[in-house]
């Protein structure tokens, strides 16, 4: 008798793929509409130049670069859950991995797009390849983020592969193009033990590599700021600060995604509440870690009292950006920590609220790192000018980027199982006479009678 894998939740996990409601149509219509508005905004920018934004001298980087850092940060969610927790042997992560990794692969393209959108001459983007200078942190960025995006897609695809084969075999009622898509993407996956063994081995190896990439990527993104001489940016702590912030906002995004999926697709049995409790503990650690970074950074600056650094310090604490700074502290730290510690246990609603606040706050945090420093450059005469009011163009493009990410995610969940069927399956003995699958299919209980 051979052991095989059964997933008793298979039908529930595949149910969303067999459906497409009016709510979906409405959601997609809204998202496409927002993308269209953003497209029009970008067309204005393409035609008239970056002058249609609120950017100016000295605030040369604003909302677009904030978006860039934010989306790359969000991408760390998936890798953290699937790669780092995999290495830690946290088996409770298994139902979450694909939902988390999907955030990664669907947010990275919008991070990269944000850079292209910010460029004055985007049609010259290939100059980075033809004339690239590796002394520039932008080249390190380009290398790291490209490698990360490529590797994430491969990692995601490999984790998805057995389930694509499952869809190929199970979803016989799907339209022809969809079945053909599964057949092509399944690459002839048979699901024999050796293939699984090799797949697990490669995923383990890639998990190590992806963990190294996570650390590299967000540190390198922070060094775009850290390697300049500007007060507020030029600090050794910027690497760890950005890295922790990325893992923090990413994990919070995973909670939001899971809660939505659980509700919309009725996956209550597959995504039980203890998953959220485990994530809650991680989030408490990250919130406190974030506080540590903030205290370390600002206490050091304040105690030293260096003139140009204090100008930026006061910009954040009391002057032009005080409102945004303290709002950020409230949204990232004060309220979420309270909720996580006192209200979050066993309560998904509160967890989602806190995590939404965390992500809004983290977007503000990126903004507050980038813009105030630019408004207080060293040659102090520029005090007269340092001001930044984003325009509708920047707002519309930002909305379009978020809509794009959500649209890709939502579409994905209707064509592929968002919970890994093969990773959450359990081993069971094959009994003679029991209805089992035909030789190529090894899932569930639907099919022909077993040979004796």
């Amino acid at each position, binding site marked *: 008798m051979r052991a095989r894998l059964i997933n008793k939740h298979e039908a529930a996990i595949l149910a969303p793929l067999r459906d497409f409601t009016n709510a979906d149509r409405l959601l997609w219509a809204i998202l496409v509409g927002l993308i269209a508005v953003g497209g029009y905004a970008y067309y204005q920018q393409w035609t008239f130049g970056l002058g249609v934004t609120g950017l100016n*001298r000295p605030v040369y980087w604003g909302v677009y670069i904030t978006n860039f850092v934010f989306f790359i940060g969000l991408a760390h969610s998936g890798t953290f859950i699937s790669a780092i927790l995999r290495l830690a042997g946290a088996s409770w992560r298994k139902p979450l991995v694909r939902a988390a990794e999907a955030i990664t692969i669907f947010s990275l393209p919008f991070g990269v797009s944000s850079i292209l959108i910010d460029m*004055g*001459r*985007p049609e010259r983007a290939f100059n980075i390849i033809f*004339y690239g200078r590796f002394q*520039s942190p932008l080249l390190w960025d*380009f290398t790291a983020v490209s490698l990360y995006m490529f590797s994430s897609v491969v990692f995601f695809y490999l984790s998805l592969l057995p389930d694509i084969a499952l869809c190929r075999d199970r979803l016989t009622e799907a339209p022809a193009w969809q079945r053909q898509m599964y057949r092509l993407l399944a690459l002839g996956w048979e699901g024999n033990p050796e293939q699984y063994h090799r797949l697990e081995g490669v995923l383990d190896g890639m998990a190590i590599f992806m963990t190294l990439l996570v650390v590299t990527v967000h540190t390198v993104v922070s060094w775009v700021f850290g390697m300049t001489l500007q007060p507020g940016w030029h600090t050794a702590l910027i690497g760890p600060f950005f890295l922790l912030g990325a893992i923090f906002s990413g994990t919070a995004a995973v909670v939001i995604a899971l809660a939505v999926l659980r509700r919309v697709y009725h996956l209550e049995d597959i995504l039980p509440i203890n998953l959220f409790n485990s994530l809650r503990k991680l989030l408490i650690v990250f919130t406190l870690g974030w506080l540590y970074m903030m205290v370390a950074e600002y206490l050091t600056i304040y105690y030293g009292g260096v003139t140009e650094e204090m100008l930026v310090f006061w910009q954040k604490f009391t002057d032009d950006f005080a409102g945004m700074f303290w709002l950020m502290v409230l949204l990232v730290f004060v309220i979420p920590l309270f909720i996580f510690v006192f209200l979050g246990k066993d309560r998904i609603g509160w967890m989602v609220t806190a995590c939404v606040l965390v992500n809004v706050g983290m977007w503000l945090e990126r903004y507050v790192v980038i813009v105030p420093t630019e408004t207080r450059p*060293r040659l102090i005469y520029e005090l007269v000018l340092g001001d930044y009011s984003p325009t509708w163009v920047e707002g519309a493009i930002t909305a379009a980027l978020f809509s794009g990410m959500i649209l890709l995610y939502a579409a994905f969940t209707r064509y592929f199982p968002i919970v890994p069927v093969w990773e959450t399956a359990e081993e069971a003995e094959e009994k003679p006479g029991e209805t089992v699958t035909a030789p190529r299919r090894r899932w569930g209980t639907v099919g022909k009678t077993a040979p004796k």
Partner: protein
Amino acid sequence: MGFGFFYMRWSMVIDLDKCVACQGCSVACRFENNTPVVKPDEAIKGRAIRWNDVFPLPINPKEETGEYPNVKTRYLTRPCMHCENPPCVKVCPVQATFKNEEGIVQQNYARCIGCRFCTVACPYGVRYFNWHEPEWEGSLATHLNPDRLEGDGDLEGPAIRPKGIVEKCTFCIHRLQKARARADSEKRAFRPDEYIPACVQTCTGKARFFGDLDDPNSTVSLLAKSPRAFRVLEDVGTHPKVIYLKEG
């Protein structure tokens, strides 16, 4: 290359005692280099392009400048510092900005991708970005400087540039090219005093000097040794080549 050619290290000295902040340098610069003009609403947003900028420099950030007639203020006229260790060159991903062998930090409009990393990296704020397509109206449009420094994937100096790229003071490098070419055609050595940027040529108070810092007998070398000499933001490590002589 030329008759007895050798590299020089171009530097500028500005005597703040003689500067009257008339802004003649800024005006001469913008006409020499075809600097795009911006409308008042854009200027309010801080998007005016001034390769050479004249601005008040308070003695310290929080100090009062005083009441008339006992006003205490000073002005700084600031071109690009053409640093020996330029932070802008370090961060450019495509070598659109680079330091040449004579110490001039050049800017190639043809290769610039408009990422603005150099603009945020410069601690002096000497770099400017073209937020819109450059345009000139009326008599400005008919009086553009025809001098060009372009060719071979290169577009610099007074050349008409597109929107979305960065520009800055070039020490009027097109004048250097012209002066060298003239010396070559006359089959004689090029003399450093044949090359003079527009701001230095125009200065009302004769406060600006320009020359070869490698020549121990040049005006700039001698003035650089003055006890009044200082460089802006010396502690930041950029080694700027614009030397100021402080008042007093």
